[in-house]
């Protein structure tokens, strides 16, 4: 009995620690706002249609690790690092293989 409750506490601590592993650190909600205002202006109309669902988490991670290489790197320069983290968090946390995939229709 006692061992079990210790187990639960341990699990809870692990959970709190692990959330950061599964989810990125920025503010996904602000990221969604920023993504819509800064990226969606082109992506979906003049540029390729992009949404979190377009890639798996690993791909988003790769993309953002080397963002200087993307086609629209010129536009990315105007985005502050904090904002970029938020956008990354949004795209990553709602990626195709995320725990909460963004819904399509």
């Amino acid at each position, binding site marked *: 009995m006692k061992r079990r409750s210790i187990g639960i506490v341990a699990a809870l601590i692990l*959970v709190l620690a692990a959330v950061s592993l599964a989810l990125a650190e920025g503010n996904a909600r602000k990221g969604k706002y920023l993504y819509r205002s800064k990226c969606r202006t082109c992506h979906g109309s003049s540029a390729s249609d992009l949404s979190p669902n377009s890639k798996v988490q690993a791909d988003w991670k790769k993309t953002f690790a080397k963002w200087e290489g993307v086609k629209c790197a010129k536009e990315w320069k105007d985005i502050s690092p904090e904002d970029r983290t938020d956008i990354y968090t949004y795209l990553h946390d709602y990626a195709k293989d995320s725990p909460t995939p963004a819904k399509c229709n």
Partner: protein
Amino acid sequence: MSQKEATRISRRAFLSLAGATAGAVAAAAVSAATAPEARAAAPAAAPAWESRYSVCDMCFNRCGLIARVENGVIVKLDPNPRFTKSRGMLCARGNAGVAQVYDPERLKTPLLRVGERGEGRWKAISWDEALDLAASKMKDIGAKHTRCGMLFSAGADMQSGFVSRFAEAFGSFNVTSHESLCLLSGNRAFVDTFGDVPLPDVKNSKYVILAGANRLEALVTPDSMDLVSIMQKGAKVVVLDPRYTKSAALASEWHPIRPGTDMAFMLALAHVIIQEKLYDAKYMAERTSGLDRLAAHVADKTPAWAEGETGIPAADIQRMARELAAAAPAAMVYPGRRSSDYENSTQIRRSFAIVNALLANYDRPGGLVPARPAGLKKAAPFEPPWYDDNPPGRVDAKSVPLLFDDEGSFVLTREAVLKGAPYPVKGWFVYKTNPMATAPERRKTREMIDKLDFMVVVDIAMSDTAWMADLVLPAPSGLERQDPVQALQAGAEGACLVWRDPVIAPLHQSRPVFDILKALAGRLGFPEAFDFDIAGYRRQQLAAFPEAEAILKRDGVFYPPNAPLGGTDGQPFKTPSQKIELYCSRYADLGLDPLPVYAPPKPSPDAARNFRLVAGRSACVTQGSSTNNGLLSEFEPENTLWLNEEAAGELGIRQGDVVQVQSPAGRGELRALVTPKIRKDTVYMLSGFGTLSGGLSHTTGVGASIVELLESRFDAICGNSAIHETYVSVKKKGAA
């Protein structure tokens, strides 16, 4: 003597029946004209009605229907034969849609509370007053408590999406849906196993295990109809349920499983399938991950072990595992819908998902099939604002490891509002959902409402939730509305599209929630978020199908081109490993059990509370939303407590006695239904009775409220309400 007579009659009746067998077909050829009293009646005239398509609004299934309208009055609702998702049917509730429209107790005007909460004193006010008031209260709350100080809750409705849109435009993250009181545990488990929530293709299945799903009473189209059809064609349907439901009665096999032990059954199935190598080894290697770990995990989960847990004989479990595997991939453990049973429901449903994975039935006829894209376009895009003063997330965020961000958890949101932490929530906008009657521990919902500065409810009737509000706004029924296009999924047949046009003008002063939200958006300074009408919205939704509008008008339903099954073959699953995760790596990362670990159901902490209370459905009512319906209340006039006959005998309770039921959450009094149709350790009652509202004459003061009794437990992983965790005591009223 009369009893003797009756026995004799039935025996004789049986004999004449047997005799009739041979004669019946011959008799069919005899002309009626030989009857002596026969005369011809004048042929009846066809009714002078107009027929208009709509979509049923009596539950979430959205069955296509044809409204027969005479002189502006709906006289009958008939099924739309072109609507194949429902197999062209309309159930008792659908038929009772007319009674809902013309319910004399419908809300007629905006009402402002003038007495104490729950006292029932209201003042009719104009729409302008009502909207001005709501807008100014919401503005005040936003200014004082940040925009997230407003909570938005919407039920399953074709306009509910507009409520979420409004919340986003207003700036609040706090949206809850009915789903967290219903099915999210199952969704969680399947997303974490398959990467999506597949649908059962019952129609083509040869073997279906319904574990707890009462699909012949809790109707889901087309699954319920298809279950009957496939059984007639020789498919096997196994029901596990502590209650002899109608599904149990008609199933090929029924096992009165000990409540809370479904996972033991599933692990034993997995044990047999793996032990006897009844799976498709190539498929498992290519498409799944973690088979070895699963095999080790279930190595000791033998049928004999499971028999001890579930009460189902080991030989039966072994046989079912073999039968299931033999029928695979046209076989399934039905994923279920209402899945909010236990605190470990996500893990229980994971065990369902794992057995399905072992059957290699994903995207196969008769198995579990992915929802097919319906091709609807996003309509009326807008730029939601950002408020830097807002808190970082939902009020219930991070209270469990894997909350669905769009749905949240009502139970956990309620806890947060009660605590005022992590931040205060002081306003509540409710559309067509009724937590006072659907969320466990009604007392707590009541206390939550007391914490609020302002609560507005938009609904068609004075629900218990509306009864507690400050402002109540009358909505029209689905039949009086124009609604956007919605995609519906029907197993292997894929998606179909429906919309609604009003079949009659809105009654009384009712206004659709879209109009209400649009008016509020204007008053609150973000009219651009609702700068469209529904007709235009629908045109944008259907941009990919220029022919759809005409077809929807002609047929009441539009079938977009659907890809055949098997389209996901070779495609990665939307999981971190890109495979079906028998072993859930995400859970491992989060410190959760990566394989479902069985724990026997917790015994009652109180010896006096020796019955587990389970919830369930009748095919005649949709929880609390239709028990007050004038027609349906004839089928379910009151709820009773199902009590096993042996247990009743021990308690001295006879048929129809009023019993007192008590739990830590509350108490209730209702009549006992003494029956062999339930296990001795379990009691059951229907929801939707024992209401509080003065606008529900068929249910207020009638029966007992299940949410008064249920404790507010929740799923440890996704926060879904866990409604089978409550033990109750039962005694005859007046007994010591």
